[in-house]
């Protein structure tokens, strides 16, 4: 497994049977590949579908939130942007999984703009981070060696204080009121490896081997 697959596989284990889940683009999109047999997750896409299924090459008016042709599963529903974001902002989404440029010790997230360089826009991310019950960040631990998990984000925020869990190819880290707790470390790495690759202070108490690895 490459690092993206490790992250996706570990996050898949966080989803509970019956959860309504919104996945961001990039690594989060790989999560469905790793769901345990029999675990029923309902995926929502913010452009207006509940019960999103796999991608398709067939002619369809159904796209996912990346604009790619997709399918709807039995029991699904089409909704407009208003109801879609009522679900998102109103706390009806159990889990959202999103990528990050930076994430910090206060649970703040930067993911939508690199001023002067790249201004794609926030899309649905700000509402997702604010509204979902559980916010999981799926990210490589560093950007080519440069830490992405910081004591304080330097880029413009997507939202402050909303992240619950950070999953990287090296570790699983939970965001608590007193800071970041290192919960699990991938067998290929030591605790020190993780601490050294993390700019934020990590609280290291009871660390386990990363589940499913």
């Amino acid at each position: 497994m490459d690092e993206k697959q490790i992250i996706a596989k570990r996050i898949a284990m966080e989803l509970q049977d019956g959860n309504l889940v919104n996945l961001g683009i990039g690594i989060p999109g790989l999560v469905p590949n790793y769901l345990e047999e029999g675990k029923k997750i309902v995926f929502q896409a913010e452009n207006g579908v509940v019960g999103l299924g796999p991608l398709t090459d067939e002619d369809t008016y159904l796209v996912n939130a990346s604009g790619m042709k997709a399918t709807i599963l039995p029991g699904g529903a089409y909704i407009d942007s208003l109801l879609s974001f009522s679900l998102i902002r109103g706390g009806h989404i159990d889990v959202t999984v999103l990528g990050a440029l930076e994430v910090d010790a206060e649970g703040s997230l930067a993911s939508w703009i690199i001023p002067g360089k790249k201004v794609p826009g926030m899309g649905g991310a700000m509402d997702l981070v604010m509204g979902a019950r559980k916010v999981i960040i799926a990210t490589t631990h560093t950007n080519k060696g440069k830490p992405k998990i910081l004591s304080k984000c330097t880029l413009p925020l997507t939202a402050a204080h909303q992240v619950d869990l950070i999953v990287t190819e090296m570790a699983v880290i939970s965001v608590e009121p007193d800071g970041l707790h290192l919960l699990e470390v991938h067998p290929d790495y030591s605790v020190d490896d993780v601490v050294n690759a993390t700019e934020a202070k990590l609280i290291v108490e009871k660390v386990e081997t990363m589940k499913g690895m």
Partner: protein
Amino acid sequence: MKAEISAKEFKNLLKDGLTIMVGGFLTNGTPEKLVDLVVESKVKDLVIICNDGGYENAGVGKLFTNNQVKKLIASHIGTNPVVGDLMQEGEIEVELLPQGSLAEKIRAGGAGLGGILTPTGLDTVVQNGKQIIEVQGKRYLLEEPLTADMALIGGAVVDKYGNLRYLQTTRNFNPIMALASDKVVVEPFETVDEIDPECVITPYPLVDYVYREEK
């Protein structure tokens, strides 16, 4: 049935400086033919309200390539480098909004509200210049309503009365834009005799014109 409108009649409704809402999400549900007619009309200084900037040669993107836009209000422009370039060069103004806030602002405009309070965007650059209101001990951003001179509606199944439903995910911003605009112009993707009253998404009194392509 609401008035049918030809390409020529539609172009007669256009003029410089209009604020136009365009339905669709990454062009899914965008009325491409109506956008093409706006391109042909060469009107300029438009304010475009759309979820995104479309693609370079699709959706509202065509209006940027043709230099017809003064300002874009959207949640995402990452799929159209032309928009980013025009913005960096100061040729156009871009107001980026969280997608849910954009939807709420349009809906507020269509529903006669003075705005809505959302936690989305708090403590980010999105709050710049906006009122912060406290309710039950929590802070919220006041997002003010958006309205437009015209809405261009796509993805639509149209019945003989002018009722609309939408094909799959083409629904997205179309129904709220149909509420929030003075003139609502629909490009039918499909026509049917009658839509079940239980499944109508946009009731026909909201629709002003249905575009009819000349043969």
